[in-house]
């Protein structure tokens, strides 16, 4: 007798997002568990890990922010191949403010996040009308060009970069600020994207012309999404500059463009949680592979291909489906 797998959604009122959610503890836990447990783990991890893995956690959070920023853009239909642009812009702004004017990190990081966002948005504004792959090409080329520009004009330290940034006073502050920022971005922007505002953004991705027909100014919405995403990226860059106490040409490196995309692809694009999950898998993995040197980039490449071909929905959506559905084998009537 041939069998097939039957999938049934769990019949819980909570899934309708209604007031029924408050009916029973079971259902409230069912809803809250997947949200609170990761938050709890994130807050607890810095206390449990050794000094080396704390640093890894820090870069996990930074890459998670970049991946979130990539995903917000992707959900608006703008595929960025150059997150390094946002990252590097934030890093250089904070570096310049701190190095030349000696401002403290409390001032430089917010300024870098906002100004970095504004500058990146302004840079990409002329190409906002481009769709699909044409937009991606521009984002791929901009960071490459900025690197060469810095190299050629020798501004801001040229190839050597700027050193001696003010470090962040304590490592606990360092860790909890970045983890807090990551969680705030994750849940805040997840909420934003599920609101009506987010619906417009996703509408632009699905069919920009019909959104245009509905009398909505899609360029204005795209600009806003771009500002949000580049602001997040710039914040990550600015923060890491103060941690490493250095800013230079490596901030525009391909790493900062590829890893966030890889994280979003592995974790599952379309929900910021997937991007974060991807960062939590890939960054520690690449740390473990650090001993193998250049081989880890090979692994990124292979990972990207395997996930794009075999599991295009990503890990997060896969787990989400398993969580929300019963599965059982049933016999097929012939």
């Amino acid at each position, binding site marked *: 007798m041939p069998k097939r797998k039957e999938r049934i959604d769990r019949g819980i009122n909570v899934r309708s997002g209604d007031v029924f959610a408050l009916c029973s503890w079971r259902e409230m836990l069912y809803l809250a568990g997947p949200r609170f447990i990761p938050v709890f783990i994130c807050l607890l991890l810095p206390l449990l890990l050794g000094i080396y893995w704390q640093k890894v956690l820090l870069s996990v959070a930074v890459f998670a922010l970049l991946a979130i920023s990539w995903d917000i853009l992707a959900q608006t239909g703008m595929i960025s191949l150059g997150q390094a642009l946002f990252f590097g812009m934030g890093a250089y702004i904070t570096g310049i403010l701190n190095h030349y004017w000696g401002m403290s990190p409390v001032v430089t990081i917010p300024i870098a996040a906002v100004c970095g966002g504004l500058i990146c948005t302004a840079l990409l504004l002329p190409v906002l*009308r*481009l769709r699909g792959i044409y937009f991606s*090409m521009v984002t791929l*080329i901009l960071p490459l060009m900025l690197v060469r520009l810095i190299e050629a004009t020798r501004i801001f330290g040229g190839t050597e970069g700027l050193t001696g940034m003010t470090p962040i006073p304590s490592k606990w502050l360092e860790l909890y600020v970045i983890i807090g920022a990551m969680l705030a971005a994750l849940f805040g922007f997840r909420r934003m994207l599920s609101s009506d505002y987010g619906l417009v953004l996703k509408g632009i991705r699905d069919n920009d012309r019909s959104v245009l027909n509905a009398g909505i100014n899609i360029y204005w919405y795209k600009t806003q999404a771009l500002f949000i995403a580049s602001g997040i990226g710039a914040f990550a860059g600015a923060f890491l500059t103060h941690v490493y106490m250095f800013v230079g040409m490596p901030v525009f490196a391909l790493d900062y463009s590829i890893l966030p995309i890889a994280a979003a692809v592995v974790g599952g694009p379309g929900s910021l949680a997937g991007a974060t999950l991807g960062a939590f898998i890939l960054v520690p993995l690449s740390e473990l592979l650090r001993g193998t040197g250049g081989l880890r980039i*090979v692994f990124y*490449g292979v*990972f990207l291909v395997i996930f*794009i071909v075999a599991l295009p929905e990503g890990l997060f959506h896969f787990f989400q489906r398993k969580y929300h559905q019963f599965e059982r084998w049933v016999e097929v009537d012939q």
Partner: protein
Amino acid sequence: MFLGTVVYAVINSVILALMAIGFNLTFGISGVANFAYGALYIFSAYTTWMGLNLVGLPYPVAAVFSILLTMLVGAAMYRFVLLRVRGQALSEVIATFGIGLAILEIFRYLGFVGFEYTLPVFIDDSIIIAGVYIDMQRLLIVIIGTAAIFLLWWFTHHTRLGLAFRGIAQDERTALTLGIDSDRIALLSVAMGAGIAAFAATVIIPLGSIAPAEGYDVLIKALAVCIIGGLGSTGGVLTASFLIGFAERFTDTYVSSHWTMIVSLAAILVVLAVKPSGLFGKQKELEERI
């Protein structure tokens, strides 16, 4: 000085065109993204080198063998990866770029870096044109490159296969109704693009040495030529490579070598922002911007 710059600019332009035509055939003419192009270029150079130095094959045999092997890799890449994500432009780009990344970095990891990794020139001689020394290899490149561009134009305009390549890019469904098996054609297109990349590598690499980093450069240059010239236009490839080639050589001579790359990148940016379909591209206005 000026005349020398012009001569070398012409050579540089033809090199660019030669680098770009394989990519143009796959991405520009049949609309299949192959961002592993630069990696395939380097891959073929290394396989030729290995055939020559490790196995001890004669040079022509090693070169032909590596061209065939690269075509096979391209075909396999299409059959096992690209076929499954056809039509999703972004997935195509990411998947092929991932493959390219893996190929290039594995060569870097295995330590294939250094001046000993180079291919022999065809004829070791040089002549003087307009008071400038030119080695035979560069002269050969100019001849082969010009012939290759003409062949590409003839192939895409006057052969059934070439017309099919263009057909699947223009409208895949209409092509299907006319009996063009788009999957088979796309496979051939990727394989031929890879083969041309391998051929270009065999001709161009003797001028320098083989390095993994070169793979990224080749990809960006091919991309630049295709975008500026306009996807799907052979005349565009020629014009764009001469534009970039001259701009690069002249900035190199009269400004500074730091600015060489910036010029071509800036050119891509400007063209993308102003006329995304490139100088000679057929306008598909609504597909590229809104």
